[in-house]
């Protein structure tokens, strides 16, 4: 294949062989796991910090402001400074709160997003676990986060938090359907749930182009539903600051608040990368069938640049939503899901299945 | 309805009403015990229809305490200023008009809070601005507070 220059499989195998050659098998597995864990931890922190910075800059530009500009050139160290501040802040413990759950909640939220990131393909061979039910796994794991949010709202013994958590629960459970169904549309087209194969399937054209209108509709639906699932505006009812002060994380401070904060941005990153992988071809370069020269040039751009570029595009779209639209009300939110998104999704799947059956797709 | 006919109208309902001359609005002083019935009548009658209570103020006239009602009819456009007075400074009380004009609910609470005038049958007569256990009524002329009121 043309883009084999950026294939990381052989690189991974080399490390693997070297480890197995020098260490007993159990130790080798442990070392590999540690390496991957560390790599993800660093990646997680860097992406989280960068996203916070990006969000602040994007919204600042949309609002005719400068945004962070004090710490470092253009304020790029602002989020790092904020993070250090959060680390040093006092952890408030609240009277009459459920201590165990209160402390557990941020970890559940952050672990859920950590687990989801493992299945995401960053490039050929750059994937921690390549499940054959990858999509299902990601959907399942990313919705674990709501347990953390519910616990946080319940255990902090604050009515605002509780309302926020309940809203969040209702919201995520209903929007999970739309996320699943819109992904299912593509699964029908791709015929597999494995991320690596989905990406491979898009070698000669991204699914959003291959699948005609249904794929495009699925993409839009996925964007809406995933924005809602990550509790971001205009669906940020769980933390609607003008109504519930800060919703479920009202009572959290310091590093625990930072966990929620990071997890929110990481969830955004995860859904954006799923959108990029499933709809926009993941790390696959942009190809026009027939334009060999053009395609060849595209191949020289490394796959993770493609991948990150697409993810950034989706994230930008989500930020654009957030900073434009006012917030929905809870009944409108559920109406939108159950009365509009879900029926459209179901019809969409049928249409897609029909297209696949007739072989009308590219 | 012009002022003269309005005066006549109120006089027929409350013969004791005293007219005050040379005022911006038609001004009448009404005995406190007759006031509520008069207010109902003014609000309900088709030709007066005083449906808009636009101002309700308490005044401490040193000799007596007074509540001033500014009424207006949004349909006919006439206005009237009614006053009720009491010389009882210890336990002044009038009948509430908050059952007639809902706006009076808050106004009367304000007057109660600052002047200590009670309104009988008021649904929720509590202090509105000041603390529940505040002593005295600050807007009265004889109120003394050496800590919070600084004379310049």
């Amino acid at each position, binding site marked *: 294949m043309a883009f084999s220059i950026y294939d990381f499989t052989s690189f991974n195998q080399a490390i693997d062989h070297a480890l197995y050659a020098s260490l007993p098998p159990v130790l080798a597995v442990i070392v590999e796991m540690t390496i991957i864990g560390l790599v993800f931890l660093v990646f997680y922190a860097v992406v989280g910090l960068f996203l916070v910075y990006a969000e602040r800059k994007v919204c600042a530009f949309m609002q005719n402001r400068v945004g962070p500009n004090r710490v470092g050139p253009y304020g790029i160290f602002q989020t790092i400074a904020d993070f250090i501040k959060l680390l040093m802040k006092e952890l408030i413990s609240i009277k009459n709160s459920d201590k165990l759950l209160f402390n557990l909640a941020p970890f559940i939220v952050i672990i859920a997003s950590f687990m989801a990131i493992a299945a995401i393909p960053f490039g050929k061979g750059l994937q921690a676990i390549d499940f054959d039910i990858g999509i299902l796994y990601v959907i399942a794991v990313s919705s674990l986060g709501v347990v953390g949010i519910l616990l946080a709202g319940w255990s902090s013994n604050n009515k605002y938090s509780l309302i926020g958590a309940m809203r969040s629960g209702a919201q995520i459970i209903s929007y999970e359907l739309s996320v699943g169904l819109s992904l299912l549309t593509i699964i029908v087209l791709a015929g597999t749930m494995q991320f690596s194969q989905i990406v491979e399937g898009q070698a000669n054209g991204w699914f959003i182009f291959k699948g005609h209108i249904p794929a495009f509709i699925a993409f839009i639906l996925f964007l809406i539903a995933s924005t809602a699932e990550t509790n971001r505006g205009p669906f940020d009812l769980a933390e609607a600051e003008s109504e519930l002060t800060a919703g479920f994380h009202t009572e959290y401070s310091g590093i625990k608040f930072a966990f929620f904060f990071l997890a929110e941005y990481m969830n955004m990153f995860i859904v954006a990368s799923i959108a990029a992988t499933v709809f926009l071809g993941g790390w696959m370069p942009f190809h026009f069938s027939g334009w060999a020269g053009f395609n060849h040039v595209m191949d020289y751009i490394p796959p993770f640049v493609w991948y990150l570029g697409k993810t950034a595009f989706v994230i930008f779209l989500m930020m654009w939503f957030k*900073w434009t639209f006012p917030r929905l009300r809870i009944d409108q939110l559920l109406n939108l899901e159950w009365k509009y998104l879900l029926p459209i999704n179901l019809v969409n799947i049928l249409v897609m299945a029909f297209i696949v059956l007739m072989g009308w797709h590219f | 309805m012009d002022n003269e006919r309005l005066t006549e109208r109120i006089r027929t309902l409350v013969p004791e009403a005293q007219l005050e001359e040379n005022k911006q609005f038609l001004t009448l002083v009404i005995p406190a015990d007759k006031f509520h019935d008069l207010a109902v009548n003014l609000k309900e009658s088709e030709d007066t229809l005083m449906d808009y209570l636009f101002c309700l103020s308490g005044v401490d006239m040193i000799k007596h305490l007074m509540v001033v009602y500014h009424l207006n009819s949004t349909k006919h456009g006439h206005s009237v200023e009614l006053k009720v007075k009491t010389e009882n400074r210890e336990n002044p009380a009038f009948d509430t008009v908050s059952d007639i004009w809902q706006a009076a609910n808050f106004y009367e609470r304000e007057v109660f809070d600052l002047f200590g005038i009670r309104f009988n049958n008021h649904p929720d007569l509590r202090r509105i601005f000041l603390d529940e256990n505040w002593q005295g009524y600050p807007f009265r002329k004889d109120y003394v507070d050496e800590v919070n009121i600084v004379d310049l």
Partner: protein
Amino acid sequence: MGVTGKYFFSPGQIVTEQYPENRKTLKMAERFKGEVIMPHDENNQHRCTGCGICELNCPNGSIEIISTRIETPEGKKVRIIDKHIYHLSMCTFCGLCIKTCPSDSLAWGQEFEHAVFDRSKLTKVLNQPGSSIIKGIE
């Protein structure tokens, strides 16, 4: 979305005042009410006669005038100010002292960075030490 998108891609419209950095170029409006000052000329002379009208007109008691009566060489008894004390902490910037001053001795100053660590620093003496009144002002 169109509106926000338009502003995102036209960063020329940024309106933020970068305050501490633009201190040098920052110019307040000429009528800006920063604080009350008493302008002195190059001979360290002011126009205040110590009549006390500003003190009377101030709604908050933020002006205090300490004056003494002296006898001029011509034998007239004149009041001159020792201290024109101005409590910035109590001032509400209504401008009545400046408007009512019969000899136009007070004016608005442009200074607006009033934050200090000690409250007593907000009490200012407006006439400079050793200053005197310009001749010919009654």
